[in-house]
């Protein structure tokens, strides 16, 4: 098994959906890790590409929950680190 087969990061487009002259193509991004007799897949929506009569617009899909969770974790870690540094200085 080669390294690129073990770890694969790709962006793929799904089936086109059409309504009232609007064509939308969903995009997803996946991370695949393979090992002998096992593996892990993380797949998430990335964006929708909207085509209105030749005008193309890309609307990103933002995972608000993930941003808030990682933001809270980052802020807590920062406070924890700063607290440690300030306590040592005093």
């Amino acid at each position: 098994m080669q390294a690129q087969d073990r770890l694969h990061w790709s962006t793929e487009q799904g089936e086109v959906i059409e309504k009232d002259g609007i064509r939308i193509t969903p995009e997803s991004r996946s991370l695949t890790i393979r090992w002998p007799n096992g593996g892990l897949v993380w797949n998430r929506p990335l964006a929708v590409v909207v085509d209105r009569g030749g005008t193309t617009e890309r609307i990103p899909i933002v995972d608000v929950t993930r941003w808030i969770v990682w933001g809270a974790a980052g802020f807590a870690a920062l406070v924890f680190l700063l607290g440690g540094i300030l306590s040592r200085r005093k």
Partner: protein
Amino acid sequence: MESGMGIEQRPLDIVSQRITDTIGRLFDIARPGAVFSEPVEAEGYIAITAKEIVTGMGMGLGAGSGEEPAGEDGKPGSGGEGAGGGGGGYSYGRPVAVISIGRDGVQVTPVLDATKIGLALLTAWGAIAITTMRMRRFSRRSLG
């Protein structure tokens, strides 16, 4: 064991093949079709849900056999064989957004996971509170 092709296949080979097939199916969720739902049409709108999926799996199996050497009296020794296997997996999915297509164009509405956000904020608040208490205790000691 005889397979359809007339080639002898051991039970372990069959199990091993099934494991490979099962793991192969795991990677099907890397397709966009697994993340976006089938479009649902109602009241002039088309709605598609978009979700995040994480799946992990691991399996293993082993087999062995042995034979006891023949005894001094010339009697053949007994033999035995055994095989075993095990596996585990994890799967997780969470809605991220709803895509709606209608008269007013295309809209992407985020879906908030209140439980996950609540737990994260509570944990962060706890960590900050502990750090603040430690700092206060430390400054009191320094002044004293």
